[in-house]
């Protein structure tokens, strides 16, 4: 027989809210402390350049096929929907420049950041989380090697520098995808699509887009490392860490995107 469960009292609810808030601030404090130690750790990056390049290859270069595939479709859909929105109001010759703005300022950095959150942040959390629960982090410490220096610093800076590169390539391939849709499916000539772009092109847009990419690169790597280092339990803990890293990276990307947009534009 199931006994009726009493609803939580106000004090129980408040206590739960308080505990959740405290956990959140403790977590935010730990992530900030890790960020500080990683920033200080840049002075040892030259010594650990082999680790840095390994991570740049793994996190950046190996993400290229996925980023380019997604970039192609992002460009294609932006052009297609741009056509839908402009039709009847704005001449179609402005499709190229409006697509470029949308991609360079927003879609390229944000969507690439979200892909990297899924691929890189989750993979860093899973890798470091597994190392944590199998005592490999303790083993590093016991050898007198700082896990932050050896594991977090190369991953952070590799991702920080590779994400703008990936975003640049994604922007480029997205414009190719958009051009394909415009010329093959929307009946525009190539000249119609490209000719207005130099008129409205502003190099500041590119710089702002890349600034976003730097921040998203930092956020995704930081969350992967922080969540990985704080993993507890066995396989279940690693699974949860992967999800947490991905979810927090996405949230922070979207929040920082909004804040950066307010400052940059």
């Amino acid at each position, binding site marked *: 027989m199931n006994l009726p469960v009493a609803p939580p009292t106000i004090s129980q609810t408040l206590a739960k809210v308080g505990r959740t808030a405290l956990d959140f601030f403790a977590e935010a404090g730990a992530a900030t402390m890790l960020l500080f130690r990683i920033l200080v750790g840049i002075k040892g990056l030259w010594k650990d350049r082999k680790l840095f390049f390994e991570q740049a290859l793994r996190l950046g270069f190996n993400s290229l096929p996925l980023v380019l595939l997604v970039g192609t479709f992002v460009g294609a859909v932006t052009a297609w929907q741009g056509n839908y929105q402009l039709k009847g109001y704005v001449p179609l010759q402005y499709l190229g420049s409006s697509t470029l703005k949308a991609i360079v300022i927003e879609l390229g950095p944000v969507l690439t950041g979200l892909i990297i959150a899924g691929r890189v942040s989750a993979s860093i959390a899973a890798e470091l989380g597994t190392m944590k629960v*199998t005592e*490999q982090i*303790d*083993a590093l*410490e*016991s*050898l*007198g090697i*700082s896990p932050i220096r050896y594991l977090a610093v190369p991953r952070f800076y590799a991702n920080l520098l590779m994400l703008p590169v990936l975003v640049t390539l994604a922007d480029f391939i997205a414009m190719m995808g958009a051009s394909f849709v415009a010329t093959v499916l929307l009946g525009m000539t190539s000249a119609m699509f490209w000719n207005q772009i130099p008129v409205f092109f502003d190099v500041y847009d590119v710089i702002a887009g890349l600034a976003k990419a730097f921040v998203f690169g930092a956020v995704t790597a930081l969350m992967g490392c922080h969540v990985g280092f704080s993993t507890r339990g066995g396989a279940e803990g690693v699974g949860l860490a992967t999800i947490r890293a991905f979810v927090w990276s996405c949230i922070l990307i979207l929040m920082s995107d909004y804040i950066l947009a307010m400052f940059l534009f």
Partner: protein
Amino acid sequence: MIEVQNLYKSFGDKSVLRGTNLTIDKGESLAIIGQSGCGKSVLLKHFIGLLQPDSGDVIIEGENIWNLSQAQLYKIRQKFGIVFQSAALFDSMMVAENISLGLREHSSMSGGEIDKRVKECLAMVNLSGIENLKPAELSGGMKKRVGLARAIAMKPDYVLYDEPTTGLDPISADAINDLIIRLNEQLDVTTVVVTHDMVSVYKVSDRIVMLHDGEIIFSGTPAETRETDNGIVRQFIEGRAEGPITTTSTLTS
């Protein structure tokens, strides 16, 4: 010499170490025994600062490790080799890279000298020729021995073993015991073995201490341990389900 003074450690509501005191002399081969979950591994990890106590001191060769900077603590850790319960080999690295990592980080040895040292260490644990294997390709016993090779690569003064024979068949476990004894003699190190495997304890140690309810409740030679009339120790070494441990333990949440 390792001195542990009045060490307290809790995890959440669970109090694990409750004023633990222990002194380990240089050259000693000490076994720390106790029930599963009584805090043996927690105590061991305090020796090199892998865990921070709630209160109390850990003094290594006269230096309180909690008064040291991180760089100084890392320096102290280089005097230790630790063999982890799960071996804790770096699974992204080959065996040779696992063993040589500490040397590459801290020594001025050339690549050739490091390779030579890796071969020496593998020979000491009877695993010559597996330099290029990944940990995933090794059996449980081999992993423990590679972990041991990694622990001794930097010629430590202290070797700490966390459950070295757990999960191994009796023959592999005995091979590990022989190895511990041989390395202790060859390398002239201070050895601390945390285990509840009494066969191993009697074979490798010259002093046994028992951790119970967060405190060291017994210290003696293997012969004294066999003869003791301490009820708690007797129940543990005889492996009886009924006795004072099961009726009086207060190590609870």
